[in-house]
């Protein structure tokens, strides 16, 4: 039988020198495994996170590589259910409220501000950019009076702009807010925006909860091209939460990231596996070579390096990604 993670770490920390931090990481991961990683939704039937961690570590031979893999895990920014709910609230209380005040020209010093703001909220139509569970967003923020919960990317393919405009007008809506929990490069957001651009009678806000830097660029381009569109994300993934393909020139980066870059290159073929039908999108650093280290409990985005999420005949993932397309 193979060694458990604890036994592995125990063996490593028996090595002379600065190895005691490995026990600290182990304790931290134990906590995260119960509190956070256990929330990961795809492939619930797969072994519990602690066992997945072991299988993942065993992808690489015992020694420095495996230790570096282990040291890397806490660098993944895992957004759990509670964090996401907080993000929903923050999105509403922050960018959405600010935009709506502007859009509806509300006077925040007015005595009847609360009622006016409430009216504006009721005149706003909420939808998802590309497949987010809009119901949770509505429940968390106690938004009432909207039975239709559209997905604008779906509407871009199946919907009809004229009908939508007619419906929204008859429902007394003046503004549209499109939210999404995670936007990577923004290609899906672009598709949704295509549809939204046709709804010229309404001012529209795109408000992703978490967005990667390349998604911000996409958002800004969209704003430039579509006059009645605004873009205001809640949380932009900072450059420090990425594993870039090339080391940042002149800047010091954490040694765990440097180590992991070498591993990503070296084990790329093994991650890909031999089956041509199940290849990850993009290269060793994920879709668009983003190298993002942010993931959520409902899936691991494809712009995260595939060594984290890709299953092949020669690689076990830590958080297996559920692909949209087969």
């Amino acid at each position: 039988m193979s060694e458990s993670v604890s036994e592995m770490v125990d063996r490593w920390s028996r090595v002379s020198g600065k190895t005691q931090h490995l026990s600290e990481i182990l304790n931290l991961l134990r906590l995260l495994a119960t509190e956070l990683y256990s929330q990961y939704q795809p492939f619930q039937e797969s072994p519990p996170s602690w066992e997945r961690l072991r299988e993942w570590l065993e992808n690489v031979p015992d020694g420095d590589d495996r230790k570096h893999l282990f040291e890397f895990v806490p660098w993944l920014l895992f957004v759990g259910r509670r964090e996401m709910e907080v993000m929903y609230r923050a999105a509403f209380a922050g960018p959405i409220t600010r935009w709506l005040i502007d859009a509806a020209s509300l006077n925040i010093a007015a005595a009847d501000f609360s009622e006016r703001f409430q009216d504006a909220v009721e005149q706003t139509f909420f939808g998802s950019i590309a497949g987010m569970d809009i119901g949770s967003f509505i429940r968390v923020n106690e938004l009432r009076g909207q039975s239709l919960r559209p997905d604008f990317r779906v509407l871009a393919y199946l919907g009809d702009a004229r009908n939508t405009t007619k419906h929204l007008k008859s429902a007394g809506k003046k503004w549209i807010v499109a939210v999404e929990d995670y936007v990577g490069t923004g290609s899906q957001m672009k598709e949704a925006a295509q549809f939204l651009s046709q709804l010229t009678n309404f001012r529209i806000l795109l408000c992703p909860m978490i967005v990667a830097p390349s998604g911000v660029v996409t958002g800004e381009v969209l704003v430039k091209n579509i006059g009645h569109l605004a873009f205001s994300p809640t949380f932009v993934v900072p450059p420090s939460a990425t594993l870039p393909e090339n080391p940042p020139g002149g800047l010091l980066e954490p040694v765990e990231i440097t180590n992991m870059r070498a591993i990503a290159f070296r084990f790329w073929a093994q991650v890909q596996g031999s089956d041509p039908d199940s290849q990850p999108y993009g290269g060793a650093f994920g879709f668009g070579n983003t190298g993002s280290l942010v993931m959520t409990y409902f899936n691991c985005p494809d712009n995260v390096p595939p060594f984290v999420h890709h299953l092949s005949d020669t690689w076990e993932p830590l958080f297996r990604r559920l692909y949209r397309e087969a």
Partner: protein
Amino acid sequence: MAIRRNPFHTLYLTEGADEVDLPPVFSDVILPHVGPLFLPGNVILKGMQGTGKSMLLSLLETKVRLEFWKNVKHPYPLPDQQCRFVGAGINLSKSLALKLNELIFSTDRDENIQRSKIVFSDFFNSWILRDLFLSLGRLMKDAAPDRLRMIGVTGNAQSLDKAASLLGRADSCEFLRGQETAEQVEKTLTKRLRAYLDLVNSLSRDKRLPNEIEGTLTHAGEPVSAATRVLRSAKVIERDTNIFVTVDQFETLLRKRQDDGDERKHKRFFDVIDDLIANRDRTVSYRLGSRPNAVLEKSEPLRDYQDINLDAILQRGEHSKNAVFPRFAEDVFIRRLAVSDFPEIARAKNPLKHTFKASPPAIERAKLCASQKHPEKAIRCDSAWPKDVCSFLTELAKEDVLSAKLGEVWFRQQVAKEVKSGKKKPTPDDIPFDPKEVFRKPWESRTWWKKERVALAVLQIAAANAQRVCFFGATDIIALSGENILAFVSICREIWESWGRAQAESSLSTKEERFPPFDELRQDSGIREASRLWREKIAASPQGNTLQRLIDTIGDRLHKQLIEDRRMSYPGANGLSFAKHDLESDLEVKRLLDDATAEGFLLQRDHTPKTLSRGKSIKWYPHPVLAPYYELTVPHTKEPLYLTVAKFREWLQRDNVLASNDQRDPVPKNRSDEATNQKQMTLYGETD
């Protein structure tokens, strides 16, 4: 399978005495050494963190005594003749006494200090007086008559009421004027304490004492002395019954809070207690529980109080069979297990050995640490050495790596003696040596030389193999505990914990581990974890970050010294020695060392140096439980590293433990200013 709880999960028993059934777990091993604690007269019970002060003091508490009296299996551990007392007490860190320093009574600094001292005294008096009345009430209610006779409480509720009314007439207890019964007195005192609590907790900026307190403030100790006298005259207690007032966590009065730039705030309350001990009122006997860094200045030892130094008691016979600590630890171990989910272990013949086995002899330990395939890698021969010697040692290493390592060291020392001084790299011609001398293994017969170097040899063998020295077995655990029961309990806890986790994961990989005895690796990893946690704990103590850097500096430097000492000239260099007069010249460094000692991160011992000219010296060792973390040797053999304070300060400044000289404030003029000038690094490296 039912989950069996870790018997050592709760580290401190007496601090949460309310939740714990004390009699079965109370260890009486130290009692014969602390006799004065139960005799009249003031006593200061000193010891570093985790030596069991609170446990001993709890024996004076009425609640604990009643618990013992009810317990048939575990009788009260003191002989009847030592029981003639009634206890009352205050725990300074648990009561809100320290919060009183947050109140400001006057804008004038001196007046403010004066006033706050009086307020503290009054709070202290009220607390203790209330506790005394509650104790007596509880004794009369719950104790059997023969017990009461034994301890010298002969009165009843009526005589207690009489005492209360007499107390109301005493000059020093004006605030009890008109009280007729014990119940009334208790109520008044509770109300008074409540008023203090409200005052401290109140958010209002205008914090003023209520008038009824303002006009009736009392001097420290006077009301309790008066109460003792009336209790005797009203025949509540006998003439020879003592009142013992316990003041636990006394050292907290010395602590500087981070937001409190004025150490005198605490010092002033310290003064109050110091005065109390110094005033020679013999009516009441005080017991102060304190860490070793709290030194009374006004009162004199022997005349005003007696010192009981728990550290010294536990160190007694450190190397002999009668050593106190091993017996204490084993007793604690058995008692904890007896009330745990593992009672069967407590019934074993030698529970400690039964659970942890014997520690390995040095030769075995060396083998465990050396490379299994190529143990000879631990041996380093210089190029100039005769070939015969090298091949002999290499061959020997395959059989007995420890002996080979000692052989290498012995030869290295011989070469150093032969080669003329000044020559850095000897050539083969410089070593006129008969290899046959080596073949006789002369180092094996030099008992002391060998004994002093064994631990270091094992450490260097492990380092050559890039491994940590492994620790397991009862002897190791006792040695690593360093006469500190808290360290001992922590180690036991982590071993159990490590085993428990392995069980939780066992269904996935390994086979189930049965114990006792615990697997060696399990013990080793538990010990390493305890060591790591002890080091982590440093940061949580007062001035923790500075202390942690201090211990890191000492630990890392000593480790380097031990590993690089290839000739093993200083096998005792797991500690530092400073000349006393030298140390007195740098109070800042001295205070740091003292604080770290009080918290149990360093051990302090007197040291008689080799050279008389150095004068009396003091040596410090990192606490043995830290040895696995910093990779140090455990035994305290001869001759620690001799250091001047100036050199040590250089270390500390380089490692940012202390601010460097150009960042220092001008030399402080008087004590209190100097205390405030504690070196805190400024953000921008400048002085204001």
